[in-house]
């Protein structure tokens, strides 16, 4: 089974940093507008969020795996709830590759697989190199185009 690119941890950590900054900002806002807080509170709150985010990122990286199997795309991931997902190729509606600004800076890209199921865009593989994502997209597209079945909708 394939792991994600190690740099994905940096992305998750960066996201945690953004979250920490927002929490810190909110605490600062409370401090100035609503009631006085000890100076350590905004910093501490931000720091806690950041550290939890770092631990989470490291754990999540260790648990994220995906695999192209004979008839389906298989993914497993999750820290609190561990989820194993099978997406039969015949059920692939369409495939996106996408990257946000941070992902672009890190040279990463995500693959998003859509099915007609009620959990439509549930299947997302982050942390791929752009080439790998592109290749996966091509593979899945070919499999979806050639697949014998329909989407059963």
């Amino acid at each position: 089974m394939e792991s994600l690119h190690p740099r994905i941890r940096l992305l998750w950590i960066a996201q945690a940093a953004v979250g920490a900054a927002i929490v810190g900002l909110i605490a600062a806002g409370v401090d100035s507008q609503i009631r006085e807080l000890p100076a350590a509170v905004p910093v501490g709150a931000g720091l806690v969020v950041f550290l939890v985010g770092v631990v989470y990122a490291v754990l999540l990286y260790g648990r994220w795996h995906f695999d192209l199997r004979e008839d389906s795309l298989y993914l497993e991931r999750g820290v609190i709830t561990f989820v194993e997902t099978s997406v039969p190729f015949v059920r692939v509606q369409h495939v996106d590759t996408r990257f946000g600004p941070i992902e672009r800076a890190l040279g990463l890209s995500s693959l998003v697989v859509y099915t007609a199921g009620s959990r439509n865009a549930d299947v997302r593989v982050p942390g791929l190199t752009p080439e790998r994502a592109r290749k996966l997209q091509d593979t899945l597209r070919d499999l979806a185009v050639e697949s014998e079945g329909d989407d059963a909708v």
Partner: protein
Amino acid sequence: MNRLHPLSAVLMALNRGVTGLFLGFVFATVLAAVFDPVSGFWTVVAAPTGFLLGAAYGVAYYYRFEYELTADTFDLASGVFARRDREIPYHRVQNVDVRQGVLFKLFGLAIVNVETAGGGATEGVLNFVGEDEAQRLQREIRRLTAESKRRRRKGGTATDAESADDLEWVDPDALETGEDRPGEAIDPPGAADPEPAERAEGATGSEPAEGRTEPAEGATDDVTEPIDPDEGPRAVRGERLDDDADLEDGAIDTASGPGDERIDTAAGSGDWAVDDEPVFADEYRTRRLFELTARELLLYSFASFRFAAAAAVFFFAFVAGDSAMEVVLATAQPFGGPETIATGTPRGYAILTLVSLFYGAVLTYVVGAGFTFVSYYGFQLGRAGDDLVYERGLLQNYSGSIPVGKVQSVTITDNPLQRLIGYAGLWVETAGYGPDSSGGSQSAIPLATERRAYRFAERFTDLERPTMERPTSVARRRYLARYSIVAGLFVAAVYGLSTVTPIAGWQYAALAFLAVPPAAHLKWIHLGYYVGENHVVIRSGFWRRQTTVIPYYRVQTINTRRSIFQRRLGLASLVVDTASSQTFFRGTPTVYDADLAVARSIHDDCRERLQTALAKRAADEDAGEIEFD
């Protein structure tokens, strides 16, 4: 790669510019309010800067938005900072929709929406292109879709999403009696043999002597049951008129035209052939499958609970406030309630609360029963062509149709009271095709004897009789722990309440723990699953038990989920997702808390049997027959 219409760049720039202006303003204002060094003057700078940045973004977005029609897929690439590359295979396209407002018409512009199945937003939006380009796109996508379908068909393995949907139909007589259908013995000789000659033979056996009903007119009284047992049910099939029809130009899709299809199942289960000649006149004939009798209607009204009816009770209390209050006070007094609402002891008020809750519950129940009675009065379900049609309602007539080919799964529901009297209801889920606003779930049988409901489900889905299995008793232990925690929280809450109010005797709240073991047991006992040849059946719920039948063919994705608690106990929940749209009350069908090994094996079974079902379907289609499974 193509770009959008240049005017869209202008519009986008303006649009994003205004957004940028607004964001800059808000951002500077907030910063100025929070941080002292930031002064209000910043907004004067930030707002125009925001506008410029937004406009620049809008222009950049235009230049970064590209679309292309390739041989197999419709490609879209978009995004300035965040990029998205999307490839939509043509045969997944459901409809291409061109929109033109008045202004757009004036300037010769149009918005093109390309939709595929599945929820969520429109998958491909071209906002906006020139009129000619819109028409070209619509034409080209249609052509390429047809081409890709033909290519796939030539490959000898293709199936057609829209025509590959049919099902064995149900003999109402069998449903009425609960016995095996009498028609079994007099099957058309070639029921198991898909030769055209026999097909015709089977068809001649079914003269159209059956009753007709016109749902639109609501003339339900003169419907007659088929009287001739020889006749058997006949599924008529004509050309389908739905959204997708416009994608399949008749000319390019003769393979799935009317008259080319028949229904068949394995020998022994009995079946009837479809007319070979086109039957447009018959398209609108309805064959009745189920009618809610007066007895069933009354049982359904009184044995179902509608919590939404509480809203009506609130309304009633609001309108008739004073007189309602008097009644409540008068009832509460013998039990120690207060004389008036203004005077009273805490104990008195507590009793008053209990009494009004009681009234509320009774009223909710009565209003709910009345609502059920009125809205399900005269319910009947029939089949017309490829659709299930239903109608119901006393004051307001509801009627609608459910395309059979869109049915994703079938669910049998019952509540404790219904189980006690041995009744159950049946719902069908479609892919977001809900004729009701209630999503894609529609009542096919509001209430019938449990046996009949299950029989209907079996016939409807061609399901072998399921023998439900139960997750390991470790699951029960988990619920024991879970409910103990809930009871503990309840006791803590009551204790907390007793410290701030004069209510005494919080210790009695500990009685809640007595309810924990039965609750855990009941939750566990009503869990079940069955992994069949063609279907997986999933059951859960005590108050509103649902038994969902999912054909493997309809499976979209399969998930095995394990929370940290489940991992400790070696349990897992298996989620089987279909394309049926979810409603608030109806989660995705889930096998809860099965042993990990069991969950994984069901996971693999579902995955493998989907492939088997697909292969079987493809083979059947090659042989010129299709069945719903």
